């Protein structure tokens, strides 16, 4: 059913339409007033108020060591920048560049200028001759082909560029090269983003002269930029990371992330490790000001919009002095071993020292020998993994306890094993021993038999061995409670969790038990031994102790904003009694005659405990021809003093020898502990309150 209309509806609709007409007329009328009557005024206003918002970089946060020593600093650097608008024409840039060339000196201008730059400049400065390069007929031809004006212009420009001869370019004088070099910088990058025209070596005079003449140099500005200064040079450098250069700007792949956080494209950001991990803390907020200009373009006043905030400071857990000494020790010991001439593959060594109770990393050093020179490879402590050998036997014994196949004081016979025809044995036959002796003398067979028991197998000489593959999972589960084979949780990106062997053949379980199957990172070894030293609490390794406000006077550290408390990742679910047994075994390694590290640590006054490791490994380094060559990794983990550990450490020297004996792991271990305790003594003597390891506010 359709409803009939009443006569009044058309009238009302017409009234409605009349209203619509009135409203739209009002719009057109008002639009006419704004655009035609006042249009010129608005246009002038637009032309004169090109309010320039200038961002001034703020210093990035500094990085201190645990005692307040500056590790990473900023050095102010004067810079001259140029910001072009979206409509800036090349002619305008040329005019500014010419003026600027009078005030500043660009060293090696000819090296910075490309041929293309020179050609562009030539076209700009020789418009008539440039036009003759492409004649009318050619232009007409393009137009006849139905090209748009834009396409024609582009093509003509291309042809002109091609046809510029060497003679043409010879017209450009040497002094003009500087102008071209300046233009080159001015035109790079993005519109509305300040581009650095000159930053390195701006003299005070240049800075002052340009500042004075800013009004005649539209778009030019003088600022102070900050350069990152790594005070200890290469020390610890790979963990500190680095920031991008200005021409790199923010990393492409994370552009959106940074732009959303009010970064400019050419902002310098942390691109690796600590600088990257703590970018949000270290990066301040740029100061913003508006240049208010009058009708003729002179800057009348500078209006601050936002005062800016310098980046916050990081206080690391690292002891810079200890770190430096450890790095020296590593370098010296690598060279000492290399000098013997029997370690062709040795090129690196790692040391991690931490406080086992808090997880604070005191030193984290890694060195890599490249072409006869050492480079910093501290980051290798978390990004590379190696077979660690017998150093993991503490975890094997504890796994034996926990699975019930071992009990404190279980005696097992150390004898050569024959799995079918394969002989597997310890470095010497030890006879019937308990777990303390097994650790002290580093018995392989004790660990093999433990692993066989965990795998539910029965060993019969010269017979094949059958083991339950689930034993791999069981052992790895308990190993992971110490941090072996899982991420340690350190506050750095790109941490490796190690490598797991894939095959589950019985023989590999035996290898796993003596640290020759799965590979672990040096940081994992440090966490593992710290967990044992700390009575079963696995601590998250900490690199950053505090975040502080920037220092007000550059000397006294600023207010603490955030303090990083020790984090317990897990408590190993084993009886304290079991852990005590392993600790006793570790003590005997270093302090009882017959212990594998006794000769190196017997006279150490600080009573250390630990475990050595020698892993048969396959070379996996940079020398291609030697890949897979058989070699030995030397490791050492430990802590001191044995009864109340305050420092734990891991030393890893991959591919150290070809089978000959060399105590590089033990020598490094001894020397770093000596260094630690000497420094401690020195500090206690000098300033008692600093020895606690906190910065006094």
């Amino acid at each position: 059913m359709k409803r009939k209309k009443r006569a009044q509806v058309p009238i009302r609709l017409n009234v409605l339409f009349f209203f619509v007409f009135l409203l739209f007329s009002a719009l057109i009328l008002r639009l006419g007033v704004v655009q035609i009557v006042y249009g010129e005024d608005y246009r002038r206003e637009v032309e004169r108020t090109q309010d320039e918002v200038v961002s001034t970089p703020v210093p990035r946060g500094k990085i201190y060591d645990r005692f307040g020593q500056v590790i990473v600093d900023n050095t102010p650097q004067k810079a001259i920048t140029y910001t072009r608008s979206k409509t800036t024409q090349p002619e305008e840039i040329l005019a500014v560049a010419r003026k600027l060339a009078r005030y500043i000196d660009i060293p090696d201008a000819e090296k910075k200028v490309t041929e293309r730059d020179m050609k562009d400049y030539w076209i700009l400065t020789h418009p008539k001759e440039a036009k003759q390069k492409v004649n009318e007929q050619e232009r007409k031809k393009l137009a006849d082909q139905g090209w748009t004006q834009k396409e024609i212009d582009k093509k003509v420009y291309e042809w002109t560029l091609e046809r510029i001869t060497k003679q043409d370019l010879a017209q450009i004088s040497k002094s003009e090269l500087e102008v071209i070099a300046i233009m080159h910088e001015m035109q790079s990058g993005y519109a509305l983003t300040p581009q650095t025209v000159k930053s390195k070596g701006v003299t005070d005079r240049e800075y002052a002269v340009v500042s004075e003449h800013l009004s005649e140099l539209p778009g030019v500005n003088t600022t102070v930029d900050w350069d990152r200064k790594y005070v200890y040079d290469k020390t610890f450098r790979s963990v500190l990371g680095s920031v991008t250069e200005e021409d790199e700007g923010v990393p492409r792949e994370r552009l959106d992330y940074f732009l959303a956080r009010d970064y400019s494209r050419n902002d310098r950001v942390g691109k690796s490790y600590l600088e990257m991990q703590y970018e949000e803390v270290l990066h301040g907020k740029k100061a913003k000001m508006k240049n208010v200009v009058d009708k003729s373009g002179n800057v009348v006043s500078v209006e601050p919009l936002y005062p800016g905030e310098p980046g916050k400071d990081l206080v690391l857990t690292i002891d810079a002095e200890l770190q430096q000494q450890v790095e020296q020790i590593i370098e010296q010991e690598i060279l000492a071993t290399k000098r013997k001439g029997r370690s062709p593959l040795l090129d690196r060594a790692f040391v991690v020292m931490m406080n086992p109770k808090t997880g604070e990393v005191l030193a984290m050093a890694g060195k890599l020998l490249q072409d006869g020179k050492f480079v910093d490879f501290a980051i290798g402590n978390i990004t590379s993994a190696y077979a660690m050998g017998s150093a993991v036997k503490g975890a094997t014994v504890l796994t034996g306890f926990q699975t019930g196949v071992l009990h404190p004081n279980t005696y097992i016979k150390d004898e050569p094993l024959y799995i079918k025809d394969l002989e597997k044995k310890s470095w010497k036959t030890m006879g019937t021993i308990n777990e303390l002796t097994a650790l002290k003398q580093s018995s392989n067979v004790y660990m093999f038999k433990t692993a066989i028991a965990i795998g539910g197998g029965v060993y019969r000489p010269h017979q094949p061995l059958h083991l339950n593959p689930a034993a791999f999972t069981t052992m790895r589960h308990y190993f992971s409670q110490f941090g072996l084979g899982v991420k340690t949780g350190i506050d750095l990106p790109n941490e490796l969790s190690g490598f797991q062997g894939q095959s589950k053949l019985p023989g590999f379980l035996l290898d796993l038990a003596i640290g020759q199957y799965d590979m672990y990172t040096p940081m994992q070894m440090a966490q593992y031994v710290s967990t044992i030293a700390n009575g079963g609490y696995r601590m998250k390794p900490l690199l950053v102790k505090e975040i502080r406000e920037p220092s007000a006077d550059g000397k006294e550290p600023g207010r603490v904003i955030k303090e990083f408390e020790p984090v317990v990742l897990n408590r190993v679910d084993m009886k304290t009694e079991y852990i005590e047994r392993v600790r006793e075994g570790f003590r005997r390694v270093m302090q009882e005659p017959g212990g594998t590290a006794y000769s190196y640590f017997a006279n150490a006054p600080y009573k250390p405990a630990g475990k050595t490791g020698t892993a048969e490994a396959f070379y996996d380094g940079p020398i291609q021809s030697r890949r897979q060559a058989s070699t030995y990794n030397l490791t050492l983990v430990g802590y001191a003093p044995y009864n109340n550990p305050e420092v734990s450490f891991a030393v890893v020297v991959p591919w150290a020898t070809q089978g000959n004996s060399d105590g590089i792991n033990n020598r490094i271990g001894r020397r770093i502990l000596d260094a630690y305790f000497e420094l401690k003594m020195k500090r206690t003597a000098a300033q008692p309150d600093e020895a606690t390891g906190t910065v006094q506010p």
Partner: protein
Amino acid sequence: MDHDRLSRSKLDYHLLFLLFLLAIVSAIAIHSAEPMLPEKLQNVNFASKQLQWYAIGAVVIALTMIIDYDRLFQIAWYLYGFGMLLLLGLELNVPGSVTIKGATSWYRLPGGNFQPSELMKIFMIIVLGRIIVNHREKYPEPTIKDDFKLLGKIAAAVLPPLFLLAKQPDMGMSMVFLAITSTLVLVSGIRWRIIFGIVFSGVAVVASVVFIYFYFPDFFHRYIIEEDYQLNRFYGWLAPYEYSTDQGFQLIRSLMAIGSGELYGKGLGHLQVYLPEAHTDFIFGVIAEQFGFVGSSIVISLFFLLIYRFVHIALESNDLYGSYLCAGVAGMITFQVFQNIGMTIGLLPITGLPLPFISYGGSSLATYMLAIGLVLNVHSRTKKFMFASEE
């Protein structure tokens, strides 16, 4: 010849052609606004996305046209109830509701945020049309009392959603609802006396509020508007150079952009003045700066022709309900165009209403397409007789 007219295609090609032109204007304007957007939006090709939305809108139109609008008449209250449920959900902050700049007006959907009040606008037209038609059939010869009764019914339907909108808060959308209501009250045939009475009392209320503001500021701030930020809208509108509020800043920018376009504009791609929300709320500024008075007048004329078609279809329709639907849509779009363009040239205070069909935005465009679908629906089901008989 009669036969010819009766079997003529039922699509209104005038309207579709206007829509086509608006789509082109929209794509050009949005594309030219892109360089001005904040850097984080730089990588989005809004123009092509807008055209995709137009394509989706075309499907919406087609779907709307399948069912006879008489069916909408029947299910009007269900639609209304559904819309109210959605608005209530926002009021109760159910999971999935989104708050932007303090206003809880959106739901998160896979394709983007969806604003239920957009849909509710259309439902409102459908429901108010039904109320008026029913009333008219019940009282063919209405007395003045009947007229008031109708007014009461309309108010009862409009106030609940209006209340929820005001609480979001969404001042712009509330005003659209008022505009729709006013239009339908006007065409409902309520006596002029009553309409004038309403207009007069409205003017009186505004006048007294202004009076109180100037002479009893304490009372004003205590009982009428407590928060200053609500007044900023008006300060920024009336004295943009003295009050550097957000709205004042936006108005100055917008006036500079539009004014400096002058008669012929600066040409495509030549934008000097930075405009906030250039691709949405201030898209008209982008058009006026580039194409000047001539170009922007053409755009306004397009809208005018569009409204003309709506009114024409309303007049042509021999069904009362169809006429009301068209009138409601005309009122809604007229108000939004007037409000949006008016705010960019300082004629009205600034609210966050987009320019229909031109501003970038999927859910609002879909709504307008729905409205177009309604009008086309009415048109396609209008029977034409050579000798139409008036009763």
